[in-house]
């Protein structure tokens, strides 16, 4: 009986139903908690581009106090009725550039809420093996990089995967994305160990990870140019000359 085809088919079917049911149950039950973790992680990344987060800092509270988020289009106009946290950057990445919804996270000045202290822009691209993404924080001049935060899905450990380390991200601090009103972004060079502290638009590379660096460069160049219209529109209100 145990070897009959009918028994085997029924057994497999029953097993599938039981296992599938269990998994569906777990997935539904834990979904909220997992989503909260992902959102907290994102808030942490946004805050970390602007400030050093002490251990055990209350991320939610800091974020609620400091950050104002909204969504703009490629023309730099605010899209009403869409919340930044509902925009999936991966999904937008697949759309044509002029149709993308672009989230913006602004740190407003506490004494003068009209003035922007920092603007944090999400970036998204493709490294050597898989997606890479992150946030770039610009200072009030909308030119100097305050800090960056990069994440990756599957870059080579020890090589390209270093983009998520502090060491690499520190190299972007204080660099400029504009050169005389032209958007030139910041380029990670090939090779490692060269001092680029005098060059505002270059950072030292990662040895053995030139292709990941290329991905990072493309990601920055593409997204900064997508946000260019928006940056221009706020630079008037923020009273800065580039």
């Amino acid at each position, binding site marked *: 009986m*145990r*070897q009959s085809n009918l*028994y*085997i088919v029924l*057994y*497999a079917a029953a*097993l*599938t139903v039981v*296992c599938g049911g*269990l*998994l569906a149950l*777990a*997935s539904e039950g*834990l979904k909220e*908690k*997992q989503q909260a*973790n*992902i959102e*907290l*992680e994102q808030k942490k990344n946004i805050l970390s581009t602007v400030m050093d987060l002490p251990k055990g800092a209350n991320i939610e509270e800091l974020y609620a106090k400091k950050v104002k988020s909204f969504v703009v289009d490629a023309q730099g106009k605010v899209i009403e009725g869409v919340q930044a946290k509902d925009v999936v950057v991966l999904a937008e990445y697949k759309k044509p550039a002029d149709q993308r919804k672009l989230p913006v996270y602004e740190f407003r000045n506490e004494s003068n809420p009209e003035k922007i202290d920092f603007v944090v822009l999400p970036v998204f691209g493709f490294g050597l093996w898989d997606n890479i993404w992150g946030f770039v924080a610009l200072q009030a001049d909308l030119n100097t990089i305050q800090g960056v935060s990069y994440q990756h899905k599957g870059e080579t450990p*020890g090589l390209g995967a270093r983009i998520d380390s502090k060491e690499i991200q520190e190299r972007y601090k204080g660099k400029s994305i504009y050169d005389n009103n032209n958007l030139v972004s910041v380029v990670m060079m090939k090779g490692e160990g060269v001092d680029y502290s005098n060059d505002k638009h270059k950072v030292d590379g990662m040895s053995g990870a030139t292709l990941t660096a290329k991905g990072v460069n493309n990601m920055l160049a593409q997204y900064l140019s997508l946000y260019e219209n928006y940056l221009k529109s706020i630079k008037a209100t923020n009273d800065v000359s580039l």
Partner: protein
Amino acid sequence: MSTEVAEVKEVKKSEPLFSKKNRKLVTNPLDIDNPITVQVLGICSALAVTTQMKPAFTMAVSLVVVLIASSMVISALRNTIPSRIRIVVQLAVIATFVILVDQVLKAYVYDISKQLSVFVGLIITNCIVMGRLEAFSMGNKVGPSFMDGLGNGLGYGIILMIVAFFRELLGSGALFGFKIFEAAGFHYPGNGLMLLPAGACIVVGVIIWVQRSLNGYREG
């Protein structure tokens, strides 16, 4: 815990769970029948998740949970499983537990689950789990299967922790993320080799060497 107690009661009718033979099921895999150093199974994850002790610990606990749970389920089902699809059934059971563990990690220890990334998922194909189910649980009662799963899981976990201890200590001068050398007051630059998979190979090799010479192992 509740399942554990239930099992003890059930087995007591025939043979006590902690009989000498059953205790051997736990102690053997810790040393003379260790899944990593003697059977050389589960090496992939042993190299990958042992740069720091925290993820190694989580990985070890995850594997113990998956191994015990699937051992017991397969053992309980062993008389109903059609032999022609037994591997598929084993895989389905393992996969279910692995995904459950992964989901729980994602919900409660998100940081560590991010660090472990695909390796929790890869427990599904960990040879230790499949090997124990096929070699032991398919032919033994639930109680001994529990002991066997516990033993092999711990045997894997112990090696993982030893490897992670040396790699984190020598590689980044820390233990469980706590900077030992800096706390002691001197600078330790960190040995990059220990953070690469090659470092794990060396440590595992040394462990095997020490273990074999202690146990008086002779080739052939």
